[in-house]
Every structure is written in structure tokens, then in C-alpha cells.
């Protein structure tokens, strides 16, 4: 049977859908009996969903600079 360390090492590939069905089965079996690994996999999944939100939103000044560049480019194209 897999150890918890092995489950943690393979959890990324499990969540990314990149494991062979035999490996998936081994992990699923481990997860049935190990609540710590179930928690790890559940929370890792949540973390991966959260990563796109980890950057702060741009400031007004940053947005203004970008939009001014766009407006200026449009004028020179016209």
C-alpha cells in the first residue's frame, strides 16, 4: 500500500488527471482509509483553484498608463 508521502508526491498528477488508472486506484484506496491524505488532496485542489486569484488587482495608475497607451496607439493608427 502507498505511504502518505507517496500520495502527496502523486497528488498533483492525480488532480491534473495525468495518472494511469492503476495509480489512480492505488491512491483512491489509500484515501478511503486515510483522512489526513483526504484532507491534503481536498485542500490542494482548493489551493490550485485559488492560485489564479493570488495576484492583487492593478492600481488606478497602472490601468491609466495601459489605457493611455491604447488610446494613443488608436489615434496614431487612424
Amino acid at each position: 500500500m502507498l505511504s502518505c508521502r507517496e500520495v502527496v508526491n502523486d497528488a498533483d498528477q492525480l488532480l491534473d488527471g495525468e495518472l494511469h488508472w492503476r495509480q489512480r486506484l492505488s491512491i483512491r484506496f489509500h484515501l478511503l482509509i486515510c483522512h489526513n491524505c483526504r484532507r491534503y488532496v481536498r485542500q490542494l485542489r482548493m489551493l490550485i483553484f485559488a492560485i489564479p486569484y493570488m495576484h492583487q488587482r492593478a492600481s488606478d495608475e497602472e490601468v491609466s498608463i495601459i489605457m493611455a497607451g491604447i488610446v494613443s496607439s488608436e489615434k496614431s493608427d487612424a
Partner: protein
Amino acid sequence: MNKDKLERLKNGDQGLFAELVRDHHRALVALVTPIVGTSEAEEVVQNAWLKAYKAIAGFEERAQIRTWLGRIAINEAKMQLRQRKRELLFSDWGNQDLNSDPLATRFAEDGHWQNPPTDWHVDSPDSLLMGEQLADCLERLLTEMPTNQRSMLEMRDSSGLPFEDICNELSISASNARVLLHRARTQLFKLVDHYQETGEC
């Protein structure tokens, strides 16, 4: 983004485009910084926004907008490198920090948890990384993270680029890319886990 907003965006609504800039600009700067360096990242992303504005009418709704923007920004970064006749900055790709697992000390010798993860009390994924103090810790962690790990995290998890595309773009093996992504994610996991348990970094 709903269909109505997307249509307005594709028809050149500058107010909505400015919101797009507000939501994604810093992620794009983070995405290209490992490729062109901090001093040129802003200029590259500024050019990427110009290209995106001109091409937004052709945006296909089956793609994620962040992924679409990310591809434009990476192409722009690579063009910048070609124009300046420079190589990718990743001289250390594939061999940096592959042997240290951030969660190694959490396991007993038999490979089972000695110090298992704490139970996170979070309503939704988008609020998980939002705490003000956590945001500061996260910023510090990302700044200190090895360049290659940070890039994998930005490209795969933040921008949603397909794994194979990243390996091709950066000429690294799938196995090395996997290890780098695993290291980056587990560092982040460790940070959030500690924060959830103690309220501190």
C-alpha cells in the same frame, strides 16, 4: 465573464477593457518577469495589452481569457528577447532545488504523516489567498521562490497554459516540469497551512 460583457468587450468597450487590465495586469507582469527580467516586464506587458486590444474581437469563448492573454504576453516576451538578441534567462532550468521537498519534515520515517495538514476554514477558493496579512506573506514567498518554480506556477496554475505547451516553450522535460510544479505548489500549501493554523506566516 457573461456573454453580454464579452460581446461589448469584443466591440471595443474601453471601460470593460480597463477592468480586464485591472484584473489581469499584475498576473501578466509576474508571468513574463522570469523571461525578460523585472526591468522590461512592464514594457512587454504594455505591448501585450495593445496587441490584446487589437485582437480581442477574435477571442474565442472556449478559451479562458487569462490563458489567452498569457499566450499573447509570452509571445511578446519572446519577441522582445529576439529583438535584443538575448537568450531566455532560465540558465538554471531543470536542475535547481530538485532535491528539497517543502513538506519533507511533515512525515515520519515510515512515510506516514507525523504532522498532518490542519483543517482550513475557507468558504470558497477565491477567498483562500485574499487575507491582507496572507497576501504579504504570499508576495514574499513568491519573490523568494526559485525562478523556475515560480514560472511553472505562473504559467500552469495562474495562467492555465497547457502543460505540454509550457514544456515546449521552455524546452524542459515533462518530468522536470512536474517536479518544479510540485515544489512550487507544496511551498504554497505549507504557507497557507501554517497561516490557517496560526494566523501568522
